């Protein structure tokens, strides 16, 4: 048998951004007709590596071989010409164009649109047939679901005759069922001889979908193994560099009095769209209630209303006292005074001011508390001292209160936010996506802190799009879909499959 040339071979790729070495001497071989996973923590250099392959960045050193031929990829045009297609985490589609229009965008033949549309329609239908990817060519993008939009992205790449498909965190926005469909599509593509690179941080997907897997850690490729020869525990260890607990150690919850009581809550956003369509929910002292759901089904709005910066109708009581739902922003302060702490979903947009120092961020939201303020002045010295203590207790690295938030890693940024909110010893903690973009090592610590707060008899409302996280952390799970709560389950008595159905809007 003739030795087949690898579809992609990278040799000694290095790339530095300033003092940060994002990729260090990376080499991989991916054989044609296989699915190759690249797994690693945030900031491990996966995206940089793929950006080099797609021509967004130029490598400082190293060579790229496509099907055995040395190839220079100075820009994305060259990547497309070399047969590489990329499906980004955030789709790059024109929302008010049809599927067909999006497919030919940038790949039109000649100046007239009609003939190229007609030609594209034919090609597209052939492609759809060949790979079993059914999408209506005349549907408008904004009317399609996320899963369908992703198919359009894949078709876009195939239309440009891609033989190598790179998918960057493709399941981040999908329900478990949609993710399964995606993996079936990828399987079909593999059978048709396409080569697929799957970038993800989810161990389960790697185990289910890939043939081989490479692990990246701090810019280096630490291992490349056959998926069938490895285990999730081994991969996790390779990613982090030490043994990690994949499960959260916690005792059964001992729920006490009702702390948070939501009745008939409705939220209409500024565009007039009803985001929350009348929900009832209770969270008791000493329990963690998880809100599961695909992003965009009303979870964010729920947190905003509870945090005091979005308008709502209905009734919310905390410790028996009603909350003002008028959405006047200054309410954020009164919420905090009433023992509601909030770790927002997006720490870089909401939870932190990235240009502010760690100590300024530690006062964020509490800057008018008696301890931090004297008259019109901020008590900078007290805030600094407090920050230093908090950084020590939450193991924030580097423990430098004067460093700007943007210079900390994702995990350490999150620890700064958590330290600020948890150390207030709130009666109710709202947590949104506590471990998004956080490395595995820090995830463990963050989960422990949340459980510790529960064990002190406090109520925790957890919103996460990671089902695994919800199941591991929450005592009770409520699933949100399209502004409704589809059902509540005790996490000990349910599984991903049942929750996945609820997340897709199928009531049991």
């Amino acid at each position, binding site marked *: 048998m003739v030795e087949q040339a690898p579809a992609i071979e990278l040799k000694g790729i290095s790339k530095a951004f300033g003092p940060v070495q994002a990729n260090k001497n990376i080499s991989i071989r991916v054989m044609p007709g296989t699915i190759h996973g690249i797994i690693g923590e945030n900031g491990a250099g996966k995206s940089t590596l793929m950006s080099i392959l797609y021509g967004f960045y130029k490598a400082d050193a190293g060579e790229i071989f496509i099907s055995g031929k040395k190839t220079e990829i100075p820009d994305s045009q060259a990547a497309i010409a070399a047969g590489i297609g990329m499906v980004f985490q955030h789709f790059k589609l024109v929302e008010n164009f049809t599927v067909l229009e999006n497919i030919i965008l940038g790949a039109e033949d000649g100046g007239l649109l009609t003939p190229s549309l007609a030609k594209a329609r034919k090609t597209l239908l052939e492609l759809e047939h060949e790979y079993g990817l059914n999408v209506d060519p005349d549907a408008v993008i904004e009317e399609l679901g996320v899963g369908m939009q992703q198919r359009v992205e894949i078709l876009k790449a195939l239309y440009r005759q891609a033989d190598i498909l790179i998918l960057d965190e493709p399941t981040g926005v999908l329900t478990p069922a949609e993710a399964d469909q995606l993996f079936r599509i990828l399987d079909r593509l593999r059978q048709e001889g396409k080569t697929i690179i799957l970038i993800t941080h989810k161990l389960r997907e790697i185990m289910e979908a890939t043939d081989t897997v490479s692990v990246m850690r701090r810019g280096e490729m630490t291992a490349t193994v056959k998926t069938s020869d490895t285990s999730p525990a081994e991969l996790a260890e390779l990613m982090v560099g030490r043994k990690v607990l994949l499960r959260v150690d916690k005792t059964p919850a001992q729920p006490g009095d009702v702390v948070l009581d939501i009745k008939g809550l409705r939220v209409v956003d500024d565009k007039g769209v009803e985001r929350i369509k009348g929900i009832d929910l209770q969270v008791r002292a000493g329990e963690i209630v998880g809100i599961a759901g695909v992003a965009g089904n009303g979870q964010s709005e729920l947190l905003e209303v509870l945090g005091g910066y979005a308008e709502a109708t209905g009734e919310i009581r905390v410790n028996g006292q009603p909350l003002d739902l008028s959405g006047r*922003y*200054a309410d*954020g*302060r009164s919420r*905090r005074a009433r023992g509601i702490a909030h770790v927002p979903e997006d720490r870089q*947009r909401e939870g932190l*001011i990235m240009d502010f120092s760690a100590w300024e961020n530690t006062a*964020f939201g509490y800057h*008018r508390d008696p301890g931090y*303020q004297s008259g019109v002045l901020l008590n900078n010295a007290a805030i600094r001292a407090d920050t230093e203590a908090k950084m020590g207790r939450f193991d924030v690295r580097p423990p430098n209160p004067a460093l700007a938030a943007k210079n900390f890693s994702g995990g350490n940024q999150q620890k700064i936010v958590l330290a600020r909110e948890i150390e207030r010893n709130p009666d109710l903690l709202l947590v949104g996506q506590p471990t998004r973009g956080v490395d595995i090592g820090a995830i463990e610590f963050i989960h422990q802190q949340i459980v510790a707060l529960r064990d002190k008899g406090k109520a925790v409302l957890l919103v996460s799009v990671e089902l695994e996280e919800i199941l591991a952390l929450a005592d009770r799970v409520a699933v949100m879909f399209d502004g409704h709560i589809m059902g509540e389950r005790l996490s000990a008595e349910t599984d991903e499959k049942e929750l996945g159905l609820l997340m897709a809007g199928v009531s049991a």
Partner: protein
Amino acid sequence: MDVMPKWAEVILVPLISLVLAAVLSAIVILAIGEDPVEAVNLMVTGALGSTYGWGYTLYYATNFLFTGLAVSVAFHAGLFNIGGEGQAMLGGLGVALACLFIPWPHWTLALLGASVAAALFGAAWAAIPAFLQAKRGSHIVITTIMFNFIGAAVLNYVLVNLMRPPGSMDPATARFPEVTHLPTLHDILLPLGISFSRSAPANVTFVIALLACVLVWFLLWRTWLGYEIRSYGKSEPGAKYAGISPVVITMIAMLISGALAGLMAINNVMGEAERLVLNAVEGAGFIGIAVALMGRSHPFGVLLAAILFGFLYQGGAELALWTSIPRELIVVIQALVILFTGALDNMVRMPLERLFLMLRRREA
């Protein structure tokens, strides 16, 4: 990690921009057949070579300090206040009303009263665009520009129809009473044994401008209000999360900004002209934008930038007086400085950042 050390960021970038602007200006002067070295000589001696020159330089600098601080405070709240011109005009009206219609017993009280009036009028003129931005989302850049024109029209109407002394052909108010005249730097420095030019317009307002500089710094970095302003300017979603009201902060920041711009009128209307004339502001409101940009919206940077622009103004006037370099070319030179220090900031910054990166990598 920040790419550049702080000193490079704060000193080197503006300095190189300035040198570039100077080189280009020199080429322009050469092209019209004048001697750039001689021109620099004239500018420096004219603006800094005598107490007379300093008197004018500091007078202009005082104007720019107020408008520069005004723009800076708004910048920190993420708001681009282009309306300094109009706010300073209205501030002038406040000063004129206070000086003409209240019988002040002493200049100190008159100064206090006129300052309050100037700040109130300036703030009031900023309040309407601020309100429209906060409540209606009308873009503050557009509304403040429009309010400059409305302000000019209002002033025109008031001066021509209401405040012009009977029989005068000049669209200006009557001269302010003697008691409201502010001491010039000459008057202030004489008791200290320093002989400062008697005819230069720099006056006690310069001291007030310096005080304003310190107060703005204090406001932004020592008070919780300043903290809220800066937070809102960096991230509106963040501010909402932290319980900081965008409406309140937009209003407060713009009121402070307008008040600072209005305060400029104590210098030019009360301290120099001693009556309110039609075009009293002379573009200082717009120069304030360049001053704030160059000073990185930091009060002390603004101070340095204001003095630089004061120098350019006074030096430019001297140049027009003593050489055949036309007045318009002076504007070109000033525009070049604004262009390089403000608009083309990245042109200097990016190569410098690359240089520092290379240096650092070599060390590593």
